[in-house]
C-alpha cells in the first residue's frame, strides 16, 4: 500500500514538472505552429537563474520569481530574434531553435561554470509527513499542488477570460482572428513569453527535486516534454496534463518494477502513440489539414 502511494506521488510530482514544461510547448505549437526545440534551454536557464537568486536572497519565493522573470525575458528575446525571422518555415524553425538550444546550454557553462550545482530544499518544504505507515515527502506534494494550481489558473484564463478567448481564436484560425482586428503577432509574443516563463518555473521547481542542476538537464527534460506534447496532442492544454501524468507514472512504476526499461518506456509510449494515433491521444479537432 505505502509503496503504491509513494510510487503514485513520485509519478505525479515528476508528471507535474513535465507538464509545466510541456504546457508552454503545446501552447506555442498550437498558436504559432512552431515547435520550440530550445525549450529545454529556457528550462535550464530558469533553474540556474532561480537557484542563484535563491542562494543570494535566501528566499525560495524570490528565487521562483527570478526564474519566471528570466524565462519571460529569454522568451521575449527568442521570439523577437530567433522565431520571427523564420516564421512559417518548418524546417528552418526546427534547425534554428535547435541551434539556440545549443547556445543556451553552453552559455550556462560560461556564466555559471561547467560543473553541476547542488541544491537544497528550503527548510519549510524539506522533510516529510507520516500518515499511518505512508511517508509523504513534503516537497513532492508541494510540486503537485503548484502544478494543479497553475493548471487551474490557465484553464480558467483560457476558458473564461477575454485573453483566453483571443488565444483560443488564434489557435483555431490565425488569419480569421487577425481579420477581426486582433494583433496576432503581439499575442504570439505574449504566449511565447508565458510559455518560456512556465518552462523556467518548471526548471526552478525541478532543482530541489532532483537535488542537483547541470547544463545538460535541459535537453533531457525537453525530450520528455516533447514526448508529452506528442502523446497529449499538439496544442491541447489539458491533453498535456493528462499525458504528463501518464508519462510521470509510467516512469516511476517502471523505475521500480522494470528498471532496465525505465529510460526507454517513454520513448516506446511515444512511438506507439505516434504510429497508431499521430494526432495524439487528446488532440483537438482542427479544420486545417496542413
Amino acid at each position, binding site marked *: 500500500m505505502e509503496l503504491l502511494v509513494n510510487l503514485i506521488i513520485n509519478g505525479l510530482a515528476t508528471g507535474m514538472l513535465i507538464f509545466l514544461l510541456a504546457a508552454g510547448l503545446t501552447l506555442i*505549437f498550437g498558436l504559432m505552429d512552431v*515547435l520550440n*526545440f530550445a525549450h529545454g534551454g529556457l528550462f535550464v536557464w530558469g533553474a540556474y537563474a532561480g537557484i542563484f537568486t535563491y542562494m543570494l536572497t535566501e528566499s525560495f519565493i524570490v528565487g521562483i520569481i527570478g526564474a519566471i522573470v528570466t524565462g519571460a525575458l529569454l522568451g521575449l528575446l527568442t521570439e523577437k530574434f*530567433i522565431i520571427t*525571422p*523564420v516564421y512559417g518555415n*518548418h*524546417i*528552418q524553425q*526546427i*534547425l*534554428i531553435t*535547435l*541551434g*539556440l538550444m*545549443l*547556445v543556451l546550454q*553552453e*552559455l550556462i*557553462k*560560461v556564466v555559471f561554470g561547467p560543473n553541476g550545482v547542488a541544491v537544497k530544499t528550503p527548510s519549510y518544504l524539506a522533510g516529510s509527513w507520516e500518515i499511518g505507515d505512508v511517508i509523504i515527502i513534503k516537497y513532492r506534494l508541494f510540486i503537485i499542488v503548484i502544478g494543479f494550481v497553475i493548471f487551474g489558473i490557465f484553464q480558467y484564463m483560457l476558458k473564461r477570460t477575454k485573453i483566453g478567448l483571443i488565444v483560443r481564436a488564434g489557435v483555431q484560425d490565425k488569419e480569421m482572428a487577425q481579420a477581426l482586428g486582433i494583433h496576432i503577432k503581439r499575442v504570439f509574443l505574449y504566449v511565447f513569453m508565458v510559455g518560456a516563463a512556465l518552462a523556467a518555473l518548471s526548471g526552478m521547481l525541478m532543482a530541489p527535486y532532483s537535488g542537483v542542476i547541470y547544463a545538460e538537464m535541459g*535537453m533531457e527534460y525537453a*525530450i520528455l516534454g*516533447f*514526448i508529452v506534447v*506528442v502523446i497529449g496532442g*499538439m496544442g491541447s492544454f489539458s491533453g498535456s496534463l493528462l499525458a504528463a501524468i501518464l508519462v510521470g507514472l509510467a516512469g516511476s512504476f517502471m523505475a521500480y518494477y522494470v528498471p*532496465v526499461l525505465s*529510460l*526507454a518506456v517513454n*520513448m*516506446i509510449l*511515444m*512511438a506507439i502513440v*505516434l*504510429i497508431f494515433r*499521430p494526432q495524439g491521444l487528446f488532440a483537438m479537432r482542427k479544420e486545417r489539414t496542413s
Partner: protein
Amino acid sequence: MNNKISLRAFAFILLLIIFIILPFVNDSRTLLILLTQIFIFGILAMSYDILLGYTGIVSFGHAMFFGIGAYTTAVMLKQMDHTLLIFVLSIVIGMVLAGFISFLVGLLTLRLKSHFFAMLTLAFSGLFLVLAEKWRSVTYGNDGFTFRAPDLFRDRMTFYFFVLASLVVIFLALYRFVNSPTGRILIAVRENEQRTKSLGFNTLHYKVIASVVAGIVASFAGSLYAVSLRFVNTSVMAMDITLDALLMTIIGGVGTLVGPLLGSAVIEYAQHALSGLARDYPIFERWIIFFGILYILAVIFFPKGIIGSLRLLFWKWRGRLKQRKTTGPLPQEKERFE
C-alpha cells in the same frame, strides 16, 4: 555546358591529386589525423544531406546509424580477429544492419509531418543510446573499449589513403544517385510533396529509399570512425554526432554534395584550431557557442550555406555578364562605368 563539366571534373581531379601528394610533402601526424577526420565526417555529412538537402526531411536520429556502424566494426574486430577480412565483413554487416533499421524506422515514421518526424527520430536515437549504455556486456557502456585495428591500418598513412579512396567512391556513387531518376524525384518531394504525389509517385516509398541510403552511408562512416580512433564508446550514438552532421551540412550548403564536404573541413578545422586556442583563452573551450551562433546566423542569413551562396553569386555574375555582352552594361551600373 560540356566545357563547364569538364572544368569542374578537372578541379576535382586537381584537388584529389593535391590530397594524394600532401602526406608525402608534409608528413605531420596531426595534419594526417585531421584530414582523415575531415573525410570521415565529410562522408557522414554527405549522407545527412541526402535527407536534409535533397529530400527535405530533418532527422535528429542520424547518430543512430553512425553508431551502428561504429559498434559493428569495433565489436567484430575485438571479439573475432583484427584482420582485414573481418574489417570488410563488419563494414558490410554494419551497412546491412543500418539499412534494415532505417528501412523499418523510415516505414514507421516517414509518413508523419516534419515536426513529428524530427521528434520521433530524436526518440529512436535516444532509445538506441540507452540500449548501447545498458548492453554493457558488448558495448562496455560509456567507458567504451579499445580494440586493435587491422595490421594494414596500423600505419596512419595507409588508413588515410583508404579513407580518401572511400570518400571518392562514395562521392561518385552519391553523385550518381542524386542525378538518377530516383534522385530527381527526391528533389521533387523536397520542393513540393503534394504535387509529387499528384503526379502519381508514392512519396513515402521514395522517402524510405532516401533514408535507407543515408543510413547505409552513415554506418560506413561510423565503421571508419571507429577504426580511426581504435576506440569506441556510447558517444558515437550521442546527439552531438547528429548535430555535427547538421552543422556541417548547413554551413557548407544544403542540397549539394560538395557543401557538406566543405562544411566538414570548416568545422573540423575550426574545432582543431579553437581547441588549440583554448589553452590560452579559456572562453574557447566553449567553442560550441561559436558554432551555435554561426549556425543560427547561417540559418537566418545564408540558408543555402557557403556553396549555395557562392553558386548564387556565380549565377548572378554570369547573368550580368551575359546581359552585358548583348545589351552593354546594365542600366544601373552605367554611371559607375562612366
